[in-house]
């Protein structure tokens, strides 16, 4: 039976080093939940705590109402898919999938029915009698998935399962995983550092950094309404501008350093003169008569888009950014600009995000950290 997972104030320490200081999250029954973050952020550590391969130094992890802290891994009834596939090399594909069922003492007939069904579901029937060494990476990962799911685990845990595959196969396997997960409706915790993968596959995403969850939300919310600057720059690209709030006649504006201003009607409590960070994604600009002027520093043609690297007047943009960019949608572009040309860009005020100067909070109304 699939379960909900409750993570309550858990702590992970190795000797004196604290990897996860205090982390809480609630994963719904049947949900596809992704832990996303840069390497070393503790996402795999957390996954392995749920699996039982890492000890829990504080707090509780519950499957529904059952605290699992002290239950050894092999009694948690989990299905796990590993980055390295971890297929048993001495067993055939079928034997690999049967392994967990045999441990659960199913009858021969039951095992056969279950294995046949799962082989069909993950589309590897034709390889069932082969040894794993003769399978490609994608096929091996299908075996690993089948082996994990066939035991009807409480939860399915996946640790960067696609990172060893090439780009094309990754996209293909991504939909295969999602499809199988939908069919069996099992609670899934998925770890990845690939944001595109996370956005495509998840019901909800938890973005992590240094052992802390920065935001939990649906893929769309995470992308369009990131809770803080870290999320807005880690997921997709964001151009950060230094700005200020101006309140005048009950109207609220954000001011760029060069004086260009946008009237905002979706901000929460702000005060006149408050320093803010204005975050604009490359596709949230449009070429207009009025806006902020910039020079084109570089240009990359990407088919659907042209990606310009921009240079703004001194002091306009926040320091320590990799680049400031504008993606021009070629389907609606009137003119393609040359390197060195100047253009005027207007940010779309319905889309942009305004953060506090300390980068920690989004000032747009109703943006939740934990959705």
């Amino acid at each position, binding site marked *: 039976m699939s379960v909900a997972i409750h993570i309550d104030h858990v702590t992970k320490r190795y000797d004196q080093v604290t990897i996860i200081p205090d982390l809480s999250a609630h994963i719904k029954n049947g949900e596809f939940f992704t832990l996303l973050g840069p390497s070393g952020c503790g996402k795999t550590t957390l996954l392995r705590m749920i*699996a039982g391969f890492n000890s829990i130094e504080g707090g509780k992890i519950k499957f529904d109402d059952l605290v699992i802290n002290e239950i050894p*891994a092999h009694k948690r009834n*989990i299905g796990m898919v590993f980055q390295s596939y*971890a297929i048993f090399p001495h067993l055939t594909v079928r034997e690999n999938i049967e392994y967990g069922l045999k441990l659960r003492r199913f009858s021969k007939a039951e095992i056969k029915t279950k294995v046949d069904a799962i082989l069909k579901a993950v589309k590897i029937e034709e390889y069932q009698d082969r040894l794993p060494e003769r399978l490609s990476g994608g096929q091996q990962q299908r075996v690993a998935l089948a082996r994990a799911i066939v035991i009807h685990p409480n939860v399915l845990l996946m640790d960067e399962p696609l990172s060893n595959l090439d780009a094309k196969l990754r996209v293909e396997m991504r939909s295969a995983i999602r499809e199988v997960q939908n069919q069996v409706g099992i609670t899934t915790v998925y770890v990845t550092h690939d944001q595109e993968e996370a956005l495509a596959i998840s019901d909800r995403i938890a973005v992590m950094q240094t052992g802390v969850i920065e935001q939990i939300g649906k893929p769309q919310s995470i992308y369009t309404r990131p809770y803080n600057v870290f999320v807005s720059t880690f997921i997709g690209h964001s151009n950060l501008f230094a700005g200020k709030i101006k309140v005048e006649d009950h109207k609220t504006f954000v001011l760029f350093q060069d004086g260009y201003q946008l009237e905002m009607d979706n901000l929460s409590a702000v005060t006149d003169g408050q320093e803010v960070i204005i975050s604009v994604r490359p596709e949230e600009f449009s070429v207009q008569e009025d806006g902020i002027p910039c020079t084109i520093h570089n240009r990359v043609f990407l088919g659907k888009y042209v990606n310009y690297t921009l240079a703004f007047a001194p002091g306009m943009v926040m320091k320590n950014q990799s680049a400031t960019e504008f993606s021009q949608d070629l389907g609606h572009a009137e003119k393609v600009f040359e390197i060195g040309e100047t253009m005027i860009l207007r940010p779309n005020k319905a889309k942009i995000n305004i953060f506090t100067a300390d980068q920690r909070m989004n000032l747009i109304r109703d943006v939740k950290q934990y959705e």
Partner: protein
Amino acid sequence: MNKKLLTWDFWTFVTISSVAVFGLFLMYPLFSLFISSFLDPATGFFTLENFGKFFSRKYYYQSLINSMWVTTCVTILSILIGTALAYFMTAFKVKGKGAVEVLVIISMLSPPFIGAYSWVLLGGRSGIITQFLSDLFQMEWPSIYGFSGILLVLTLKLYPFIYLYVSGALKKIDASLIEAAESLGCNGIKKVVTVIMPLVMPTLLAGALMVFMNALADFGTPMLIGEGFNVMPVMIYSEFINEVGGQANFAAAMATLMVILTTTIFLLQKYVVNRKSFTMSSLRPMQAKGLSGIKNAVMHIAIYGLVLVSIIPQVTVIYTSFLKTKGQIFVSGFSLDSYRIVFDNLALAITNTYVYSFAAILLIVFFGMLVAYITTRRKSWLTDMIDTLTMFPYIIPGSVLGITLLLAFNKDPLILSGTATIIIVSLVIRRLPYTLRSSSAILYQISPSVEEASISLGASPLRTFFKITAVMMIPGVLSGAILSWITCINELSSSVILYTGGTKTMSVAIYTEVIRASYGTAAALSTILTLTTVIGLLLFFKVSGSRDISL
């Protein structure tokens, strides 16, 4: 956190038992020996007299000098022959390469004292060649006894180690490295000296250590062919056997000196190798080139000649085993008499050999895999200590180990002397480290996530070990175990000290038959032993699917 330390599971049990086993059968005997070497035989008080006696009489300390001298010569000669053979076999096309390799390995795996004894048969005072030369040409064949005999026999037995190590390393040199050297204008002998030699140097040193340790510890060869040329293992053996009790302290002192010597050499080698170690892996190994004309002929003659000389002892014993004997003398004509006598009188030695070696190898494989698991996957200060302990058998000569076990277990509370157990224990202790190392190496290549996958599917960690990890390790461990088994059946230096009438093994029986000058039965036994070795070797090739031997 504290709860974790006290978890009592199967692996804790394994850890504690291995500490106990190594403590009881390795450390306790070894320390008994050290202590015994500092005790006065008469009074039982602390004294340095045993060491004083050794260094004050030329008769004794000369054996140390002899040992060092002959061992060094053997090592240098083996390096020269082994490296040259490895280079030519890798770099150039040699006809019958496979056969050459198998013959070289056979000559390495058969016991060295068979070599000694057949060279006595060939070139000894009444040997075949000696007779032939003096009858026909009135020529005097140089004496086979003493220093030159030991040098000949041990070099022919031990150069294959260097050959195997170095050719393994040469296979790992990527052809592009050689091509890079050539493109920079380096060729011929200069290429070998500046590129190839430095690349194989760490491996060569590892092989040289093996040769040195084996040559230094070898007991059978100098005993049979050394005559007046006394070396340490023989000296220790005779002092120990002559007067157990009275001279045991003196023999212990000599054994202690030997352990100090081997430890020093071992640490020195480790220090040098660690300083210049690197890893290589080749995508494209060197291609063997064809030589032509006179060079080709010379190379082939040299290689075939070397192999012929190496394999002569085996051929000689097999041949003489079928000769008719009258009492102890060979008479003309062929017969199976020697075999009849062996099966009538020495059948026990044959059964003993197989029983002990199989028992030992089972224990080695079982214990080796478990200990390898705790030292690689359950790291703690305790398992690190076990890891260090398992290095000891590398540096303890067989005869010294025999003495330590005998001294430690010939009195209450645990009397094992004269039993089969003590011989099996000595075999296990001596060979375990090799299986342990290879098991650890295999374990490092098995991703822990395979084990985690099994656990996540509901198998307990213990079940996972036996159903997954052990099954994955077995092929590699088994092929190593076959080689260990071959060395077990050929083991002499510790068994000769530990055996009694009922626990005689084949190699001990061959040794005693040779000492009694009953060459026919010795030859028959040696033939059985050689045959078993060859079968073991073929089995190894079959199981491992390759000819890569690592000892």
